[in-house]
């Protein structure tokens, strides 16, 4: 690695080295500037409230976990409930999205049927459609089904492949799997369902995992959907819980607020650390908004 770098820079070694050093300094400063607010929030969650303001340091002078205890039960319903709700919604969404999108993607990528091109074009068209256009009628529909204050409006659309983006992602991936494998399976007497189940899905684990992780993160982060459909605090997700916490404590309990904020980000950090490679490759190859 070092050898390669120096051999690249033989024409003007000093200049090259100096430049690389400058770049590293710039990038390090930029990294610190970007991460500082996050680290400061983490540090502040361990500080007593009186220490947060006027203290930009990253190390709490008086380390305490009080803010976590206070924040956890700062509303009528504890954050434990919100976490459980968010987990249920996010996990169901992952299952729904991966199932329904992979089924549709398999039809588009592998099967031949009348009207296939037409439907595929329509599916791509829905990618461009802002969700605001369907928002109000969907709300009226779910209201009439008596689904408001349940998780169904958040979960059922995922089982109906409403996130067409993931269909597109999986179609791209399925097309890269050699067709000979399908044909071999067909000769062995497999129908489309068995080919989907024993050939395509096992070979698509990276793409399915990408879809799963992004679905989880986006659902976990979703604020708009829960805001509209969940009114009863017992059904709140963490994002709504945090919003209520802001409203009820206002500016009086920053450390409690930061403690809960940190906790709601924690699952995202863990996923980021575990699946960083997958997430970055997913964005690079499909141009996902990430």
């Amino acid at each position, binding site marked *: 690695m070092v050898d390669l770098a120096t051999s690249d820079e033989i024409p003007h070694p000093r200049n090259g080295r100096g430049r690389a050093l400058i770049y590293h300094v710039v990038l390090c400063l930029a990294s610190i500037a970007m991460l500082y607010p996050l680290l400061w929030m983490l540090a502040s969650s361990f500080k007593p409230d009186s220490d947060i303001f006027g203290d930009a340091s990253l190390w709490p002078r008086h380390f305490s976990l009080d803010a976590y205890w206070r924040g956890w039960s700062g509303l009528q319903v504890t954050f434990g409930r919100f976490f459980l709700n968010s987990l249920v919604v996010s996990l169901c969404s992952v299952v729904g999205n991966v199932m*329904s999108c992979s089924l549709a993607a398999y039809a588009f990528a592998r099967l031949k049927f009348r009207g296939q091109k037409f439907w595929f074009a329509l599916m791509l068209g829905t990618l461009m459609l802002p969700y605001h256009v369907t928002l109000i009628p969907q709300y009226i529909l779910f209201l009439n089904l008596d689904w408001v204050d349940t998780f169904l409006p958040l979960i059922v659309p995922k089982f109906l492949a409403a996130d067409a983006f993931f269909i597109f992602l999986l179609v791209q991936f399925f097309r890269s799997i050699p067709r000979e494998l399908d044909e071999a399976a067909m000769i062995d007497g497999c129908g489309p369902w068995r080919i989907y189940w024993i050939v395509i899905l096992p070979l698509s684990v990276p793409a399915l995992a990408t879809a799963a992780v992004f679905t989880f993160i986006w659902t976990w982060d979703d604020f708009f959907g829960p805001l509209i459909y969940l009114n009863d605090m017992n059904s709140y997700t963490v994002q709504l819980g945090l919003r209520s916490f802001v409203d009820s404590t206002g500016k009086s309990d920053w450390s409690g607020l930061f403690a809960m904020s940190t906790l709601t*980000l924690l699952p995202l950090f863990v996923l980021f650390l575990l699946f960083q490679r997958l997430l970055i490759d997913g964005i690079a190859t499909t141009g996902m908004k990430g």
Partner: protein
Amino acid sequence: MADTLIDAATPVAAARAPESSWRDSAAGYLFLAPWLIGFFGLTLGPALVSLYLSFTDYDLLSNPRWVGAANYVRIATSDPKFSAAMHVTFLYVALAVPLKLTFALLVAMILNRGLRGLPLYRAIFYLPSLIGASVAISVLWRQLFAGDGLLNQALKLVGIHGPSWISNPDTALYTLVALSVWQFGSPMIIFLAGLRQIPKDVYEAAEIDGASRSQQFWRITLPLLTPVVFFNVVVQTIDAFKAFTPAFIISGGTGGPIDATLFYTLYLYQEAFAYFRMGYASALAWVLVVIIAAFTALSFLSSRYWVHYDG
């Protein structure tokens, strides 16, 4: 011999073809069924209903009342809140998208120099994009730019007494622009992937011809990267038009101070779910669709003049 074989095989093939294509079609539609139900029930149907509602007065309680184009007329002529929301949203898009993409490209180009530690830098810069949509980040932002927030504490060290950025209508929007620029990581990754596609020998040839660094950027890097720039501009602009959560949290759902952060989607939300003017909100939604469609169409039409696909 061959002829007889074909002759023998043809009738069988002919007889089987329709049946197997019928079966294929059935299988295709079976696999597509969940999406089809969703498409008709959750996308196409609702979109048509919303188009109808946009010509009505509807408060969820009584039946929709047909008012013709009155909603659209009011939007176009006599809704100061709409004008405010348009102003805020366009200013936001016009500032946030170019700044974010410039940053993304700049950092991607530095990272593409073959520096060591690339994966670590890339991960650090990408992290804000991944978590930026969280309410927690908007909460943090509210504190950062508050009168006694972190930014003003830092400014105090150099002797500047900063204003309360969030509650000042002149600066509130810029805090949201800053939040958007902070999340430059995902377009940066796409730029980085695009830069990797540019063959090294093009630069070597340019260097032999004596092209300077800035010439290389303007004559090689940028032209070859235009498809990626185009993609990022379209995606980021549409996304910026749809921004909601940060404005909602930072302004406490009001779009204040004095409508300074009244994003279009926030206004739409207020009309629909605070005042239950479903007909008017539907009209607002369709105006948003027209704006986004017009922007996308313009981008595609203009792309032939500045996007180079022949690389």
